[in-house]
């Protein structure tokens, strides 16, 4: 059992142990290492100023992905190579940096290191970048000065950005990292190598918190002074990190990130991929997991309405073994789950739309990207002979949990594709939901969305 966190930072190995492992990565680089290029603005993952690259082993390579270092515990960096703006180049400017200088992509400069890292990440995956690809890659970074246009231009001008592995050869780093023992125990932090150990730990530590991407937990830590009596990481357990299509269903392991999910959805459920494209940002999707989104139980979680209408099943593993729970009965009330003390979500099984089934997903938010939904809706419809043969509807943001709409579903059953019918269904839907008013919208707004979305659906189906 290892007694410290071991990782690389800009090519140099780091060991951290004791309570310091609960510090955030951004504070570690700024305060311990005094490398202040990484900026802290919001400390909640929503501005990208703290963006760093996290390099994780993939076969015999290291893949570098951008994440928000302000909501990453140091222990999450275990066995990775973290690269900050200081580590991007050993001398001179990289083509990304040079383009940002030439195109006036930096004004006050406070957002700039974050943009540099996110933009570099785009060129880890591709050689050139279109305006749309720049926007996609930089969705997680806010700039208040430039209006973004110069930054998009800069991204489009970049050629021959050297990849990180050209600067930091992969082999010696991988050799060093993989020589470390995978299981770690530091005080109340445990990162076991097997699922059985994870389950026993969870059973023995009733208030234990699983930390995966920390895109929820990290925010609680920073904003609500959240501290858990014990922390459990699943990242050393084999077999939880895969996603694949089996018998017409996507099967995602309990550690699958939203980015992995998005990649799989792009091939198997493009409608969902389009929603995931608007889920947080690349940084959030690289860190955050599907299981985390489910376990966090927010009524506005973007994956849930989809999982509801697809009748997804959760595989929960505990001391007593494995059981399967349909997503529809997993939530017992606002943030209360059908999840025992010792249980962990180990798999999510999501049937994909079958031939003849139409999936329609909607997300309404104040801002189109990098925003939590005000309202979400999912529809799965099967048409037969010009009539609605079967329909499932789920709404989010209209109650304490995501809701199925049985009355509206029943009303639509057997009906034809007709505007008046869908308007009627909208009126019923409006009656079925009880939204509240909050910072993301008034109850009246949400009621209206609940009604209107059926009209929107009609035109989408009619088209």
């Amino acid at each position, binding site marked *: 059992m290892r007694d410290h966190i071991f990782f690389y930072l800009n090519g140099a190995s780091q060991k951290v142990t004791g309570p310091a492992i609960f510090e955030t990565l951004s504070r570690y680089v700024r305060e311990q290492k005094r490398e202040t290029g990484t*900026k802290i603005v919001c*400390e909640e993952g929503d501005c990208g100023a703290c963006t760093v690259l996290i390099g994780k082993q993939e076969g015999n390579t290291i893949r570098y992905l951008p994440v928000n270092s302000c909501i990453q515990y140091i222990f999450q960096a275990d066995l990775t190579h973290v690269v900050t703006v200081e580590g991007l180049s050993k001398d001179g400017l990289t083509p990304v940096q040079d383009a940002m200088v030439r195109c006036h992509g*930096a004004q006050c400069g406070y957002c700039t290191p974050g943009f540099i890292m996110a933009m570099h990440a785009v060129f880890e995956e591709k050689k050139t970048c279109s305006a749309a690809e720049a926007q996609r890659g930089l969705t997680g970074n806010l700039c208040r000065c430039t*209006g973004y246009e110069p930054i998009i231009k800069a991204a489009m001008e970049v050629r021959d950005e050297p990849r990180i592995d050209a600067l930091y050869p992969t082999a010696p780093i991988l050799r060093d990292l993989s020589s470390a023992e995978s299981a770690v125990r530091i005080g109340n932090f445990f990162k076991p190598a097997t699922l059985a150990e994870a389950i026993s730990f969870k059973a023995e530590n009733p208030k234990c918190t699983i930390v995966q991407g920390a895109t929820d937990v990290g925010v609680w830590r920073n904003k609500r002074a959240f501290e858990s009596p014990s922390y459990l990481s699943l990242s050393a357990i084999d077999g939880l990190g895969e996603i694949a299509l089996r018998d017409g269903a996507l099967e995602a392991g309990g550690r699958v990130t939203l980015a992995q999910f998005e990649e799989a959805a792009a091939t198997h459920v493009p409608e969902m991929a389009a929603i995931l494209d608007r889920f947080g940002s690349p940084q959030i999707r690289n860190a955050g997991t599907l299981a985390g989104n489910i376990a966090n139980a927010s009524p506005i979680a973007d994956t849930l309405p989809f999982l509801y209408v697809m009748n997804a099943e959760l595989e929960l593993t505990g001391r007593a073994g494995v059981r399967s729970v349909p997503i529809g009965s997993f939530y017992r009330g606002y943030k209360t789950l059908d999840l025992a003390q010792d249980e962990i979500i180990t798999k999510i099984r999501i049937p994909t739309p079958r031939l003849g089934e139409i999936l329609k997903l909607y997300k*309404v938010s*104040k801002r189109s990207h990098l925003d939590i939904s005000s309202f979400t809706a999912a529809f799965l419809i099967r048409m037969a002979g010009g009539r609605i043969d079967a329909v499932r509807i789920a709404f989010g943001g209209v109650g304490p949990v995501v809701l199925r709409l049985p009355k509206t579903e029943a009303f639509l059953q057997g009906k034809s594709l007709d505007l008046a019918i869908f308007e009627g269904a909208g009126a019923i839907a409006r009656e079925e939901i009880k939204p509240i008013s909050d910072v993301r919208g008034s109850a009246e707004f949400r009621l209206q969305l609940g009604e209107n*979305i059926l009209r929107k659906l009609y035109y989408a189906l009619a088209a």
Partner: protein
Amino acid sequence: MPVLGRNVPHDSARGHVTGESLYVDDIAPVAGELLVDFLWSPFAHARIRSLDLTKARAADGVAGLFTFRDLHHNLFGPILKDEILLAEDVCTFRGQPIVVIAAENARAIREAKNAIAIDLEELAPILTIDAAIAASSFFPDPRMIRRGDPAAAIARAEHVLEGVFENQGQDHFYLESQAAIAYPGELGALTVHSSTQNPTEVQEVIAHLLGLTMSQVVVLTKRMGGAFGGKECQATHPAVMASLVAQKTGRAARIVYSKDDDMHATGKRHPFQNRYRIGFTRSGEITGAIFELYSDGGAYADLSPAVMARAMTHSDNAYFLSDVEIRGTVCRTNMPPNTAFRGFGGPQGACTIENVMQEIASVLKRDALEVRRANCYQIATRNVTPYGQLLERNTLPRLFTELPARCDYAKRMDGVREFNATSKTHIRGLALTAVKFGISFNTKFLNQANALVNIYLDGSVQVSTGATEMGQGVNTKIRQLVADELGILIDRVHVMITSTEKNNNTSATAASSAADLNGGAAVDACARLRERMTPVARNILSVAAGAPPAAETPQKSEIVFADGFVFDQANPAKKLKFEEVVSAAYKLRVSLGERGFYATPRIDWNWTTGGHPFLYFTMGTACSEVRIDRFTGEMKVLRSDLLMDIGRSINPGVDRGQITGAFIQGMGWLTTEDLRYTESGELLAHSPTTYKIPNINDVPEIFNVDWIEHDNPVNVYGSKAVGEPPLLMAISVWCAVKHALSFVSNGDIPKLRVPATTEEILMRITQYARGEAQLTS
């Protein structure tokens, strides 16, 4: 080759992209340095019944807790001197500091905060403009601008329009939150690094509140991570709190607001409620206009009277108003004191009349562009503003002609009508608006600046001015000006950290005019240095050439400084290196340092007789097209075309960035940035999770930015200020939304608030679909 007019990179760009640029919180802590924070009022209005700090003082790691009793004075304020730094018996806004806490680390600060025993009695607050009007809670003095007899003109008018324009505030959302570090020095002196637009004001308030002379306080500003007006006055509070700790403990003291605390505790762009009564002809020409402006000043005056003055002097925007009355009243409420924000009241004034243009068009069923053109300021007639300033070098008519042609306005307007007639799912809107933004501080005496230019023995040059760098590129422009004035390469010029030690009694970097004023002062210093170096150069050149003494050279002879050389233009083959002349001048005991000064000429103005408050105007027109989802209210800006008159650009890259940045920032104010409060005045949107500034995906799908060639002889290099004006061009987006709504409003004038959020738009559409009566605004 001169560098003026060239696309020189920002002088800090390299540091920004590598992460080397230092901001206040990046400065390494010194030994013994303390962290500073404050306990703030959780209520908008409350009486402090009791305050007991004993337990908090005893907490581990706490170095001190301080209240108003520890200050020499507690009263300050840029205009009215009505503001209290640390609450005494009554708290007047939520977020107002009560106790300053100094501790070894963040944990100790948290513990101290929890250990403070405070008993507060909540009092009834005033939280809105309506409530303030009902309670007659106003700041002195209501103001008025008047010309002709608008009431009579409206009574005679063919058409009369009445309405209310309302806008919410806007958070500055500079990425770097408020920050300062204070270092104690000898004999009570203090050195303070502050993220401020106004080092002199920070210096003055620190000195006053801590009982020091201004000469004992040095304030330094290297750069800000954004400011936008939010650090013009409100950077003072953290700087004083850190200074108080440094003074009391003799230790360095650092304060850095969290983004949430910053948003809770600092003032914002002013909400306005503007009532209007407009008389107009059947061709849309305004014959009489009465505007009654109310702003929410918050708990203290701060800059609110000046913001109101600018709102009033921009209520005409690009349009001539023959008979007009504009009244302005600042409401006193229990909100954090609202403050400067890029545009400084101008956007609220201009948006009101652009809204009127849109509504006149609705009433007359005419194209709003025709209405705007019918009212646009002209060249030879209809060219005097309501406050009596003659509009010189007016390019508005030209901008109103060129932009529609460039952006294919007429054809696209037809396209929008066609689209709306056929689409069942979306509506589109198109609007072309204008901006005329007055440049100069409305307060005459602020229009001055000084600059220090030092030439070193190797010919390199340092420039220090009172301008502060917040990303806008003022240092880059000053660098270009100095390089060209001294005829040296730009790399030889270094713009130094802004320091009250080098430049005294400076004005805030604000009103878009920092490059005008400080650039003007730097040019003045350079001119005098050149003057002193000229005879030195002439002497060497004539000796070297063996030519007759200077007095007898031909008339054409003139000493020129260019490209790092000094030469006589009568004999350009003979060149001296700049540093040779420097060295010679030094040996001849000629001073190689100079302080320049600039005071804006010509401007003069007062409330009773009006006058010439602005040196010139920056102008532009903008056209935006939007698409709205009829069912969700979601809006997308499809295309924006901006055309400006920014004079001769000193740095096209920097200026272009100011335009795109201001436009998108303005768009945020008008669309997604939604400051929601609870009924008791608690801000719900206090971080980027809940407060949505524009994202990279919100940039218009097609975004064309351009300017016309036009000299501005009254300003340095013929340039024009560009920081604020383009923010007002985003009004085109909001007007396009309003235009789109006119297709579903059943012939009524569509009403729309600022911001036009998804929710606001959907609720309007719904209201019209149901055929409900109009909401009041």
